[in-house]
């Protein structure tokens, strides 16, 4: 019997337990176990250190994983020793590890900032639960990225989503509209996730498997039928809701504006990026880009909406009078660039999406952290409140300028690298007009970033009684991100290297079960 045989295999695995072999699952398990531990230990003093330790540990693990797979190899980890396709497989390649590092890295940098920021914004009795939810959210995001099992993606997606709703609702202490924002996101997010799970159901119906590599093989063998097409449609729309792809973006601005500052910084840099990754994984690994229905969808649906997002959202951002809301709309525009990279359907385009996912993550984390500091200083991030802060808070404002330049895509900053690759991708397809549009929409970014700079530096400051001075715990993470914007703009080895290997891997299509799964069947 197969079951008995597998049990023997499990025992063999356990006797030769080695930490290094279990890195893929540990990156997800560490925050997952720390989250309830924080609540069980109960002490408010312990909550933050534990959360930070867990996040830092999974960041280190992610880095180790990326170093292992950056040469294009694949790590296949069998959960509980059950061989795929029956068991759940964690499959780490360059694309996974790259996003894992982004998510855990951002989380680790944001946490010190969160300690100071949360202390001001959320009542003390909720702190323990806040860190627990934060770690659960991190677990979910990491799990979505690490797993190679389609249904497992849904489960982790919901873990991260449910904790996200809670984190956003915690903003209610400052503004009660956070509650309705969280509720709206809950409704839309659940519809998105349910669409996704319908898609998985169709795939299972058509192929009888849930393992992504196995799915890819079986779909490629059988060719596409109507069930597979329906699955594709449901998955793209469901993930589109999570990505906040242009027409499905309505939940995002409100959620970002009313969430606590630390939560916004974390989510803006990671949550939508993880959804973009899932879209990439399904569009290129599970389904074959060779299918006509997929080419049609990605080229003729994704690209127009991506272009619309780039222009419309930037345009709306240029008219905002609240920094946090401006940044939220700018995020929508930047998601447009990522969708465009997917729609280009070539390796350069996908590389651009992956690099932009990383670069925009660090840029937006810096900007939202700065906005959070401004809010604590001035009570809100409305332009007339933060006027003239350039003179009063030179360091924070300078960080905003650096990250703002990266948002525009000025040479020497991270944003430039990804937009450059994206333009190259468009030119490779011979679509010079898209390249022109990318540059043109960047000009809109110049406008809204300039408005921020103008408000910060060229206006008189309204002095307040006992102004809030941000502790180092807040400014250091901000500057780490701002310097990262410059570092990854000048040194592109890590980002471009990992992203191009990842894109190559995604385009090679299914690597098959046999290559990764040694003890398969």
């Amino acid at each position, binding site marked *: 019997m197969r079951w008995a045989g597998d049990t023997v295999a499990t025992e063999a695995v356990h006797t030769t337990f080695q930490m290094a072999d279990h890195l893929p699952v540990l990156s997800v398990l560490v925050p997952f176990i720390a989250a309830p531990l924080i609540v069980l230990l109960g002490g408010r003093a312990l909550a933050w250190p534990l959360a930070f330790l867990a996040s830092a540990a999974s960041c280190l693990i992610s880095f180790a994983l990326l170093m292992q797979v950056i040469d294009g190899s694949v790590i296949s980890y069998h959960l509980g020793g059950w061989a795929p396709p029956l068991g759940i497989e964690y499959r780490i390649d360059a694309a996974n590890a790259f996003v894992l590092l982004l998510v855990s890295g951002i989380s680790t940098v944001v946490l010190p900032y969160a300690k100071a920021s949360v202390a001001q914004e959320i009542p003390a009795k909720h702190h323990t639960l806040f860190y627990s939810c934060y770690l659960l959210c991190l677990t979910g995001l990491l799990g979505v990225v690490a797993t190679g099992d389609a*249904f497992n993606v*849904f*489960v982790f997606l*919901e873990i991260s989503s*449910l904790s996200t*709703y*809670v984190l956003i*609702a915690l903003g*209610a202490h400052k503004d*009660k*509209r956070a*509650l*309705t924002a*969280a*509720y709206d996101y*809950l*409704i839309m997010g*659940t*519809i998105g*996730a*349910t669409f996704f*799970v*319908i898609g998985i*159901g169709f795939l*299972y*119906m058509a192929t009888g498997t*849930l393992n992504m590599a196995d799915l890819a093989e079986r779909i490629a063998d059988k060719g596409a039928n109507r069930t597979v097409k329906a699955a594709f449609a449901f998955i793209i729309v469901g993930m589109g809701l999570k990505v906040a792809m242009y027409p499905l973006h309505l939940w995002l*601005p*409100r959620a970002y504006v009313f969430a606590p500052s630390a939560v916004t910084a974390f989510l803006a840099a990671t949550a939508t990026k993880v959804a973009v990754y899932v879209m990439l994984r399904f569009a290129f690994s599970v389904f074959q880009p060779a299918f006509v229905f997929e080419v049609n969808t990605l080229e003729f649906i994704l690209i127009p909406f991506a272009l619309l997002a780039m222009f419309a959202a930037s345009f*709306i951002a240029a*008219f*905002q*009078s*609240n920094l946090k*809301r401006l940044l939220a709309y700018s995020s929508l525009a930047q998601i447009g660039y990522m969708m465009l990279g997917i729609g280009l359907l070539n390796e350069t385009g996908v590389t651009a999406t992956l690099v932009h996912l990383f670069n925009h993550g660090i840029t937006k984390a810096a900007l939202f952290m700065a906005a959070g500091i401004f809010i604590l200083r001035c009570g*809100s991030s*409305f*332009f*007339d*409140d933060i006027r003239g802060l350039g003179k009063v808070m030179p360091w924070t404002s300078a960080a905003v300028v650096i990250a703002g330049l990266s948002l525009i895509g000025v040479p020497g900053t991270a944003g430039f690298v990804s937009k450059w690759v994206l333009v190259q991708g468009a030119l490779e397809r011979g679509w010079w007009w898209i390249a022109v549009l990318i540059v043109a929409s960047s000009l809109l970014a110049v406008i809204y970033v300039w408005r921020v700079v103008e408000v910060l530096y060229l206006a008189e400051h309204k002095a307040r009684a006992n102004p809030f001075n941000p502790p180092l715990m807040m400014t250091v993470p901000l500057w780490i991100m701002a310097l990262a914007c410059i570092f990854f703009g000048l040194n592109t080895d890590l980002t471009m290297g990992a992203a191009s290997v990842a894109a190559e891997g995604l385009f090679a299509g299914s690597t098959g079960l046999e290559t990764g799964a040694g003890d398969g069947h």
Partner: protein
Amino acid sequence: MTSDFFFGHLNYWLFIILMMTGLYIVVAKGNLVKKIVGLNIFQTSVFMFYISIGNVTGGTAPIFPLDMKIDPDVLYSNPLPHVLILTAIVVGVATTALGLALIVRIREEFGTIEEDALLELEHEISRKVNDQHGDAMGGRHSGD
């Protein structure tokens, strides 16, 4: 064969009807609790869909006899979708619980759970905030 088209795919038709009913309620109803009810119906339709695709024609319940003497001639239904749906049900329950908890808090803060009234209250808040801070959107409040 139209009757076969309907009865042959009965589970899918029911799935579609339930799914659309649920989605319609989510979109059309203004009461936040009713929206959650709609969401539940929508999710339940997906549970039904999964469970029905696990059925093998002529198959029996996938439960092995206690003595584990398995008769190779017995056809079992596929238990995997059922197991998946157990997980999805748990997720659904958690979503419902969280949604209802949010509604309780909304009711405490706003004093209503009707969408129209909530929108109006929120517009009032944004109008007040925008009056205070200047509204660069030219008086357009719909974003808030």
